[in-house]
């Protein structure tokens, strides 16, 4: 192609690209690479910027309370006393309740979809569980207020109160709103994330593990238990932690059902408050710099905790899915 007198490239000759000097095209190339590099750098800059804003905004509260902020349980905006314990407690316990409910359900769903159900049902079942993830938080909240809470108040909580009161977790007056309700709604919201990641992990378990177990005469359940679940343990743990990360930061639905009372109570029937929901409720009407600063500090704590949880989970998931051959047709 191209003689010395006609130094066009083939692309120029067929009209795919306009003729241009190689210098101009080199500059264009560098410019383009610079632009996409800037976009990528923006991602890092945004996370840095969020952290910076949170640290700057919470400076006053950090200075005033120090570590006492995380050990004090008095939340008194009128007298300028701020302790975050009730919110940390509410966030941890509601997420824990959510995990207790969601983990067995998600594992059951993931195992059923990947190992048990007929091929024709797989697609539709995974679509339906993922649809749960597409429902906005505020709609979960709305549904919980008008459907779930009356149901819990009338039937479920009285039943729990009469049978399991000895545990100390199900005592006291029944409001409908409270820790248990928040845990249940969070559980529904994190089932799709835990089950879809678990599914991915189960699929990445090599097929010969299953065949080996079956060849030894295992029943299907034994094959799943020994050949699949045992191999996927670390990854499933990662999926659960990712679900935890989601539950910790969930805001709207929890704010609408948890009762928003900054108290530490043992009973799951009692109203509580979470870190995310106190920010959602009080931030735009916080009066005074210290109040705003205390709320931002709660946001900072939430940011740091969710980042640590997510990184930890991501590492666990990677150790399992990386490098293993994928089984066709998830």
């Amino acid at each position, binding site marked *: 192609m191209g003689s010395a007198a006609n130094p066009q490239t083939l692309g120029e000759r067929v009209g795919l690209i306009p003729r241009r000097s190689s210098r101009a095209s080199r500059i264009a190339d560098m410019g383009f690479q610079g632009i996409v590099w800037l976009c990528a750098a923006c991602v890092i800059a945004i996370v840095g910027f969020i952290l910076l804003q949170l640290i700057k905004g919470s400076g006053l509260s950090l200075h005033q309370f120090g570590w006492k902020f995380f050990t004090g349980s008095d939340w008194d905006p009128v007298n300028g006393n701020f302790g975050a314990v009730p919110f940390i407690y509410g966030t941890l316990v509601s997420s824990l309740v959510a995990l207790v409910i969601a983990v067995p359900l998600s594992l059951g769903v993931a195992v059923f979809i990947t190992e048990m159900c007929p091929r024709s049902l797989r697609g539709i079942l995974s679509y339906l569980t993922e649809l749960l993830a597409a429902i906005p938080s505020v*709609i979960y909240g709305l*549904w919980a207020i008008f459907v779930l809470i009356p149901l819990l108040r009338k039937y479920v909580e009285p039943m729990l109160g009469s049978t399991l009161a000895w545990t100390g977790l199900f005592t006291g007056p029944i409001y409908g709103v409270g820790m248990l309700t928040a845990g249940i709604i969070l559980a529904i919201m994190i089932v799709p994330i835990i089950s879809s990641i678990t599914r991915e992990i189960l699929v990445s378990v090599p097929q010969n593990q299953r065949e080996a177990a079956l060849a030894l005469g295992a029943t299907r359940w034994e094959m799943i238990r020994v050949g699949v679940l045992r191999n996927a343990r670390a990854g499933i743990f990662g999926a659960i932690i990712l679900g935890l990360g989601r539950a910790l930061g969930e805001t709207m639905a929890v704010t609408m059902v948890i009762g928003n009372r900054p108290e530490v109570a043992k009973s799951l029937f009692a109203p509580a408050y979470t870190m995310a929901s106190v920010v959602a409720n009080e931030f735009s009407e916080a009066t005074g710099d210290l109040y705003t600063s205390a709320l931002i500090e709660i946001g900072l704590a939430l940011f740091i905790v969710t980042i640590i949880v997510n990184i930890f989970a991501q590492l666990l998931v990677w150790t399992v899915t990386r490098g293993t051959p994928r089984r066709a047709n998830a």
Partner: protein
Amino acid sequence: MPEVKPRIQWSRWVADKLATIIAILCVALVILPLAAIFIYLVIRGIGSLNLAFFTQIPKPVGETGGGMANAIVGSGVILLVGSAIGVPLGVGSGIYLSEYSRGQFGKLVRFTADVLNGVPSIVIGIAVYALLVLGHHFSAFSGGVALGIMMIPTITRSTEEMLRLVPNSIREAALGLGIPQWRSTMSITLRTAMSGVVTGIMLAFARVSGETAPLLFTAFGNPFWSTRLDQPIAALPLQIFVYAISPFDEWHRLAWAGSLVLIVLIVATSASVRWVTSRGFVAGAQ
């Protein structure tokens, strides 16, 4: 051929069947709330969906009627601003990760995108508040920025994945024709993966369109008509939240109707994406 049935212990047989039954129960328990939510949305919401809902602004407390026209338009404005920020940045960094990244910087970007994806939306709201609202006032623009930030990680990772599906032979063919790399990336690699990239954008869009928490102290909400970027603006999820926790039956009715509209928009988006991808436009790039 006669079927050989292995003899197994009775207890093992029971455990096997029990496990299957428990797994089916789990699926039923997960599908149940899904069905309940959709059924309630339709039953409670459909009666209030009339022309007024889509054309009028909210009436003051105590008056019946009124609609959410301003909230629907407001959501559109915020999402437009969000997309204007999130789509170019997301696609750009996706292109960088797939086509240019070598070594540590690419890894760092990928990792940071995952971190950003896990940041609670309310925290993003606080950060945008500190930057754009503090010292000024609540505005549609700041709400759009918050949603745009939330779109970036999803779009980045999906764009990267889709571009990686494009075979190297196509890039080599383009470069072999003497096409500059930027042109080959934009007109050939990106175009080949276009339907996949658009899918990622649509999913990110659907995801943020129901977000409420980051709008609480950025867009803030507004009971009146407004499309100005520098003023507080109504948004559908915000309005649903305010109405849902209010003590008025009339407002509850509107909250259900608004939720039905929101969920129909979201499900229609994700279903059309699913339909397009299942038709093999994306798989065709492999």
